[in-house]
């Protein structure tokens, strides 16, 4: 029988070499909470699994350039328990905290969540809203890309053969900034987002919105960074009229499908509702710091 090989290299170079040199399907294994499910349901039959959790660069959290560098294979639970990061990016944490359950979060990683490339991935909208940069290493060397350019379609990423997402760089936070993530699921937990909305914004001293990023999950083939929705907020005090425009812009940007998890009509409507609620959450946080 064709057997599956498992490797757990301790350096990035070794991991890249293994992946680049593999013939047939080689898979990166981070927490495995997607990979193992796919394996067990016979959806994938890789010849090689490369576990990246033994590589220090992928599993550390550090302060860098006034912001944070978070390894792509840091477990969700470790990130949640990182006080300084949680304080700076409560919206990102809201997304990360929704990944499965406590048990799942003990294994799952943000890198896996992004590279699994599900349009419904819960940590991704807030990650994109945060303006995080992904650092990728491969046979050709190192490159930095905005996180919104990594997942391209369900199950597909812009990573080339042998490339590994190593870490995320979160920019420093100006004062009066806040972020938030809201998702809709029929159940309270252990469910896949029908719609998710991540918003990050900054206010000036007078409370007017200076900068905003609005990201919708589960309403298109990948998470959508919606400029029109951000524009509805920028320059406003996030009053009722602005929120109304935000909701309309969010709904208008949706291009969902009907599937077992929700109808088009429902997703479009709820995207607007959640955008408004997430903006209110982010606003409250921005005012508080």
């Amino acid at each position, binding site marked *: 029988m064709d057997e599956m090989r498992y490797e757990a290299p301790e350096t990035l170079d070794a991991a890249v070499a293994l992946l680049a040199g593999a013939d047939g399907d080689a898979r990166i294994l981070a927490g495995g909470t997607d990979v193992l499910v796919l394996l067990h*349901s016979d959806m994938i039959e890789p010849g090689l699994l490369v576990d990246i959790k033994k590589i220090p660069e992928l599993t550390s959290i550090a302060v860098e350039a006034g912001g944070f560098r978070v390894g792509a294979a840091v477990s969700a639970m470790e990130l949640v328990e990182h006080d300084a990061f949680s304080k700076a990016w409560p919206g990102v944490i809201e997304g990360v905290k929704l990944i499965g359950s406590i048990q799942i979060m003990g294994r799952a990683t943000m890198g896996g969540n992004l590279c699994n490339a599900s349009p419904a991935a819960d940590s991704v909208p807030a990650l994109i809203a945060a303006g995080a940069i992904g650092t990728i290493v491969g046979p050709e060397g190192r490159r930095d890309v905005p996180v919104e350019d990594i997942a391209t379609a369900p199950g597909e990423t812009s990573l080339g053969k042998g490339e590994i997402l190593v870490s995320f760089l979160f920019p420093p936070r100006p004062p009066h900034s806040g972020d938030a993530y809201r998702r*809709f699921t029929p159940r309270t937990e252990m469910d896949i987002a029908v719609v998710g909305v991540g918003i990050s914004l900054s206010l000036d001293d007078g409370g007017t919105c200076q900068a905003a990023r609005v990201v919708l999950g589960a309403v298109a083939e990948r998470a959508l960074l919606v400029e029109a929705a951000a524009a509805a907020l920028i320059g406003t005090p996030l009053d009722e009229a602005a929120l109304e425009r935000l909701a309309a812009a969010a709904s208008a940007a949706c291009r969902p499908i009907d599937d077992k998890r929700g109808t088009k009509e429902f997703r479009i409507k*709820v995207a607007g509702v959640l955008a408004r609620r997430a903006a209110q959450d982010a606003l409250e946080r921005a005012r508080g710091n």
Partner: protein
Amino acid sequence: MTITQDDLRFDPDRKLKVVGTTPIKPDGVDKVTGRAKFGADTHLPGMLVGKVLRSPHAHAIIKSIDTSSAAALAGVKAVVTRDDFPELPPGEFRDISSNCMAREKAFYDGHAVAAVAATSERIAKKALKLIEVDYQVLPHVIDVMDAIKPDAPILFEDMVTKGMDPAPDGPTNILQRKEFTMGDVDAGFAEADIIVEREFDTKPMHQGYIEPQACVANFTEDGQTELWCCTQGHFVFRTRLAAVLKMDISRIRVTQSELGGGFGGKTMFYAEPVAILLSRKANRPVKITLTRNEVLRATGPVAGTHSRIKMGMTKDGRFTAAEAELYFQTGPFTGSAFANAPQAMFTRYDLQNIRAVGYEVVSNRPKVNAFRAPCVPQVVFGVEGVIHELARKIGMDPIDLRLKNAATEGYKTIYGATFGPIGYVETLEAAKAHPHYTAPLGPDQGRGIATGFWFNRGGETTASLNITPDGTVTLLLGNPDVAGSRVSICMMAAEELGIPVDKVRPIIGDTSTLGFNRVTAGSRVTFSAGMAIVLSARKAIETLCQRAAMMWDVPEDGVVFEDGHVRPASSNVGDFEPLSIADIAKKATETGGPIAGHAEIVAEGAGPGFGCHIVDVEVDKETGAVKILRYTVVEDAGKAIHPHQVEGQYQGGAVQGIGWALNEEYIYDKDGRMENAGFLDYRIPVASDVPMIDTVIVEVPNPLHPYGLRGVGEVPLVPTMAAIANAIDDAIGIRPRSLPMSPPKVLKLIEEAEMSRDQA
């Protein structure tokens, strides 16, 4: 004088020491330490792995099956198909057999078409891919109302509807019709001032047990079969396996494992006969463990329904008549037990004029199976909705309206029985008095109530009680314990014998150890096995008294049994120290041999059960999401032998009903393939979806049981969906009539109501 079942009457004056307390279950520690053995935990030397190939088509003729390449694969030890199953005449057993392995046609996505046994799971899976099945795909039909349309794809060309005289001509998917009537319905409606008539839909609901079915079969050279499996009724499995495989019943021995949930879904087998045939061919034991995907695609949900329900009432709130037309989707084969519905749906109201007609309809979905009060919650969803509307029309409190129409002792039911003492009124009164019923509600919140009934069941039951040489006691029981029956049965034995409950240890015997037991279902086991064990204990007590009399050399009627001891009946008999069970057991060899009692009965006298649910919901009007804020189950248990076990039943029923009400449904693609065959998308509730379910145990004893119990397994599910729908109406002014009341559907109802308000 021999004691019989008729001597086991309820004694209200009896002082109880054990019954009504909450000892640790005899199976409890093994379950929390992980030592308990479930279906997949049997391992035999040389055991092979069995895997089943399933139809990817909802409806297809199987033209041919070529297994030659699979059989040739190294490591494959046996392959079976329909050709390995004995031919059977049309009827129940042919249906069962055809559901376990498709014959001429595959009738649903997931229907078994072949199976292999191999030395590893990997090889078995690879072998399945090598089996070539030539299908001729046919048009399919999923929904019950689509299946009865004139142009619907027909599953069985030769089907003739049973129960219709004359049977309608031409092809049909209506398998059978059953009608129940009492009184004069037309006259009843003529008397009514108010009539409400509505239509309702419910979806098939999977039982949602956490443990997937698993079995190990071992067919031996001399034609014996040993089978280990998780089942709600190993004796019933044995009988049906013998029929399906054409074997003597005595040559099959079925051993049941602990059960990781059943709820009716494990009253029927699926892969078991396949494993036996594989084992016979391979000459080795074979284990088959279903995956969750297989469980959802191929094992029974309970029927989905469409119903039309009509009720009439006078303006002062007396029900005058009720009528129902009910359609049940059964999958390709009968099995819905739909006749429960017309008999139970209105039963709890003092109605004299009822007509209820049910139709069982085939379609291309898995064959349905039992689920707590099979087919009753689905139609009570409608009945209690109509009553909710009637109460609103006359501005009467919904509990008061039900009290006004409550059936009481002496009411003659539509199924012919006359109620003895029942607790419906007491249940309603307890609900009304509960603080939940009058607690304040916030904005977008609403409260609903609904009530339900179940017959409760008895039936064939056997048990054996043995007194060991040190006076402790072992029990041999014949019913798988699905929900805490063992501890309650031990408690009744301990109460009878006057010993602590931890001196009583039970096992559930395999099918060769006891006489036939009916399946664990219908809320029958604690009731029936309780009777059997009380009878066994009293027989053992009779023997204990004889032995003590012998030891003292006094006449048998000179001794009495009290508090676990035999004593002289009076001082005239003599001055003897009381003898404990242990004292007598120690001398058993000298006084005539081991001491035991056993019983083989058809338990009769099950007492009907009634429940009332109160639920508060909050509706998010922008998303349609319904949150369950508070839930109280009030139900008559007759007598709670072990109150925690009873509460567990109440809570579990409500939680399953919450899932059925809000989110659970089968999603099919256009080709009739199930799209959500996993717990990620088949959304049973998770813990955080439900509040702590409050319970009130009402106790109106059943006079025909020695401890007064009724049975509590079914009723707790019955009113749930209705209660939640009624609460939604209270919150937003719209009473949903279709399940599940999922966010998109509720949001749509809200939008439609807004639109019609705007137009008005």
